[in-house]
């Protein structure tokens, strides 16, 4: 290895950023422009896998950057949870870029240079969040992520996009400024540090009322985790082009949210403290309510992307539950579900986009019989659905399994019931879509002819669908990483 591990870490953040001038410079040459993004994403994958190898060998990698304020540094540290998040986001960036080439061109979208530039900035800030060594660094990249995705949400520039953008920015900025920033400053003030530490940072004599309030501020403040009532931004973000909804609003942005929740629970509060907080119990039930309510709302959506968005809100609730259960299995399950849900949900969004491009359909009721024209897409949709529901042979099974075990360990029967009910609801709102596509008559009596999405998009969605199955059989590395969080 000819680069120091610390350099590799910095490069993971800088490489996507460096791609931006390249993308802008190649404005007039779409092939060259997408070439820049793909090259950057391949380098990024190389970097994160190299880092993964190093972390597995037990190398500890940490950087203390310049101090923004006295005693408050920009700092980065790689720990297993961040490793999982960065691996998932890094791999899926490449896949999404391939998909986006097919989608954006097939859909004749404008301003593609801005699209790819903002995408790269967003990925860079995701890497910053994944490797943040303290809350302060995490907050900075968290805000950059919000702002860099705003132009992506309002990409089309229509009044509807403007409205969506307002909700998106309004909810994410208000929660982060009002609750998260306040919580971080208050943590800095009470604990004297905002560094992520094993076992938490609060001195034992801190009054429970303070830590309890702070937990509520953190959970609400991390609006990206979409706990009700601060979930509205996610359905609003669906006006964005589908690759954005797929990578950012099913993987990167929302996972940055639940990732931050896990980080705060494990490294700021510590599981021991978390277990004793009454407000943790309260937030746990709020998350459970989110899981159920979002599933019920999802059932009532006819727009496919809207249904998937509410399904994401519900699935994010699972991970928050895993974190707040404060049991080992809960944390492991939450961490694994980050990866599992990512593959499942990105597949579903890819399919939604493919249907939009190839068949120009957005409403579920119009998709009857679509399996005959788009068989591959619909099979992939079926696999993705299985993974979201948590049925074998797909990866989603494991995440839900461990969260369930976590709830059992904590003796929270209500939570277990909620999780089971929600899985039933998942079946009810996801499976009918591919089943009707294959076993119903076509909505309109057009001649049956296979017409799939453009090849790059088709490749991408097949890849992630196979990924869902692969993750069921090859879970060991992920499990090891997830359980390393607690050692």
């Amino acid at each position, binding site marked *: 290895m000819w680069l120091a591990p610390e350099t590799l870490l910095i490069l993971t953040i800088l490489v996507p950023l460096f791609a931006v001038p390249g993308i802008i410079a190649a404005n007039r040459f779409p092939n060259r422009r997408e070439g820049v993004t793909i090259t950057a994403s391949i380098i990024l994958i190389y970097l994160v896998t190299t880092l993964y190898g190093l972390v597995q060998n037990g190398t500890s990698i940490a950087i203390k950057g310049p101090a923004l304020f006295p005693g408050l540094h920009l700092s980065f540290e790689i720990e297993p949870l961040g490793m999982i998040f960065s691996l998932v986001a890094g791999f899926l960036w490449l896949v999404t870029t391939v998909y986006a080439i097919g989608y954006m061109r097939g859909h004749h979208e404008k301003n593609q240079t801005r699209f790819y530039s903002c995408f790269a900035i967003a990925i860079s800030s995701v890497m910053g969040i994944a490797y943040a060594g303290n809350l302060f660094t995490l*907050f900075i990249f968290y805000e950059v992520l919000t702002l860099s995705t705003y132009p992506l949400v*309002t990409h089309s520039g229509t009044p509807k996009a403007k409205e969506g953008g307002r909700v998106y920015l309004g909810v994410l*900025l*208000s929660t982060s400024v009002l609750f998260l920033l306040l919580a971080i*400053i*208050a943590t800095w*003030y009470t604990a004297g540090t905002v560094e992520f530490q094993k076992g938490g940072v609060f001195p034992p004599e801190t009054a429970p009322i303070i830590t309890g309030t702070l937990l509520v501020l953190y959970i609400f403040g991390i609006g990206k985790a979409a706990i009700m009532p601060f979930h509205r931004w996610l359905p609003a973000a669906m006006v964005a082009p589908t690759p954005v909804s797929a990578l950012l609003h099913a993987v990167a942005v929302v996972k940055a949210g639940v990732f931050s929740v896990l980080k705060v629970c494990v490294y700021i509060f510590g599981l021991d403290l978390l277990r004793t907080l009454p407000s943790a119990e309260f937030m746990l039930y709020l998350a459970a309510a989110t899981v159920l309510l979002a599933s019920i709302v999802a059932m009532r959506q006819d727009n496919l992307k809207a249904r998937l968005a509410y399904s994401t809100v519900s699935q994010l609730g699972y991970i928050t539950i895993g974190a707040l259960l404060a049991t080992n299995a809960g944390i492991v399950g939450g961490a694994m579900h980050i990866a599992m849900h990512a593959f499942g949900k990105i597949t579903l969004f890819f399919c939604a986009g493919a249907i939009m491009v190839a068949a120009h359909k957005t409403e579920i009721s119009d998709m009857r019989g679509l399996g005959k024209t788009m068989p591959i897409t619909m099979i992939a949709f079926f696999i993705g659905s299985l993974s979201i529901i948590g049925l074998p042979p797909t990866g989603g099974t494991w995440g839900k399994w461990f969260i369930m075990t976590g709830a059992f360990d904590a003796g929270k029967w209500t939570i277990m019931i909620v999780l089971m009910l929600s899985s039933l609801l998942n079946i009810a709102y996801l499976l009918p879509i591919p089943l009707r596509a294959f076993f119903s008559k076509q909505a309109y009596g057009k001649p049956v002819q296979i017409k799939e999405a453009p090849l790059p998009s088709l490749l991408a969605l097949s890849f992630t669908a196979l990924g869902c199955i692969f993750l069921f059989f090859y879970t060991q590395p992920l499990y090891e990483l997830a359980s390393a969080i607690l050692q």
Partner: protein
Amino acid sequence: MTAHLPILQVIIPLLAAPLCLFIRIPRIVGIFAILVSATAFLISCGLLQEVITGGTLSYQLGGWAAPWGIEYRIDKLNGYLLLLVSGISTIVLVAAQTSISKELPENRHTFFYTAYLLCLTGLLGILATADAFNLFVFLEISALSSYTLIAIGTDRRALTASYQYLVMGTIGATFIIIGVGLMYMMTGTLNMYDLAERLPAVYESKTVLSAFGFFIVGVCLKLALFPLHLWLPNAYAYAPSITTAFLAATSTKVAVYVLIRYIFSIFGIEFVDMSLPLGDIFLFLGLTGIFVASVAAIYQLNIKRLFAYSSVAQIGYIILGLAIGTELGLTATLLHLFNHALMKAAIFLAIGAVVYRIGSAQLSHYAGLGKKMPWTMAAIVAGGLSLIGVPLTVGFVSKWYLVVALLDKGWWPVAVLVLISSLIAVIYVWRVVEWIYLTPPRIITDEIKEAPMSQLIPIWILVLANIYFGVDTRLTVGVSKLAAQSLFGVN
């Protein structure tokens, strides 16, 4: 030579101002003004360096010893602000060269630079002097030249705006001079540090109390503290863009300096604490100002007025730091003085560049400009983000320190209110963003081009300063802390 730096700082622009009238050729006058301002900037760098390493500098004007003669005294507080004012002035002057050619008739250019240099003299003089009466003189120099700078444009509404400012400013100045007179009556001295020594003996007297009262009201008029801000929005909106950029960034800041100087260095916090519930008053007015002005900003149709109201709101934050009455609070105030100057200078210069190209500051004319003037618009957005307090900008640094100071004081609800108010800033900044990027232009205007380099460069220097000082806070936080410590008498 270096011993004379404190006076050179003030005297060079003062002498240069009438020289402009002799040179007369506008282009050369412009370059001359830049050179003068840059010299003042270099001197202020030297002064700050010396103050940080060697401690407070005292300069006896004409060799007359204080308290009989006039003393100039540079400490960390005014050294820091001298640097800010002269630095911003130089950058703004660079942009002025092209900008005023569209906004002023040719024959007024020389007068513009003359008035500008006089205004700079006044501001630098207020900062440098340690004499209460001398300070009043400089206050008037800067005020009278500001009225000229506002009224000098072609927009006739500027005349009433300037007149309004003249009336309010004169009332403020009169109150200040009444305060100075009453203090002189009681102590027989005008030197600030001599005053500080003699005042405690007469703390009980009603005269000193009324001197203080006159003084506070007078200065608050000058710094446009809500509800004494009524002159500001019109003055900023109708003045030539360069004037707005210069005054918004410096003039109110210098008035805040006067307030801090009088409270801490002359009257002393013990007196303030026992005489008036100033903390409560400032807390109330500061908070109300923040909310009322921020909400007013949302409804403005003219972008200059929008950001003028935002300035009134930002003064609220500055005063709030003072209201806390702790060293941390004062640090936050001093930081925000510096940081807000950077934001507003960047934003108003960028607006100036738009006025240069499209001749209007109406928000509706900004529709679709994101495509036509990408760099200028990006600068407005960057300035706006800084105003909101997004991390990695100076606005975040200010907000962080203000909230920490509020928590330290135990004022949780106020801290929450401050954070809520920054969300109102999101609303008015995002109104601008939506006009710029998400509204299709009404008329096809192909001839609109990006701003000229001579304006883009100064604008982007300021934008980058907004980011640089948002990341490397050693200078701003360091000096603010030291200045706050010395004002609180901790060493």
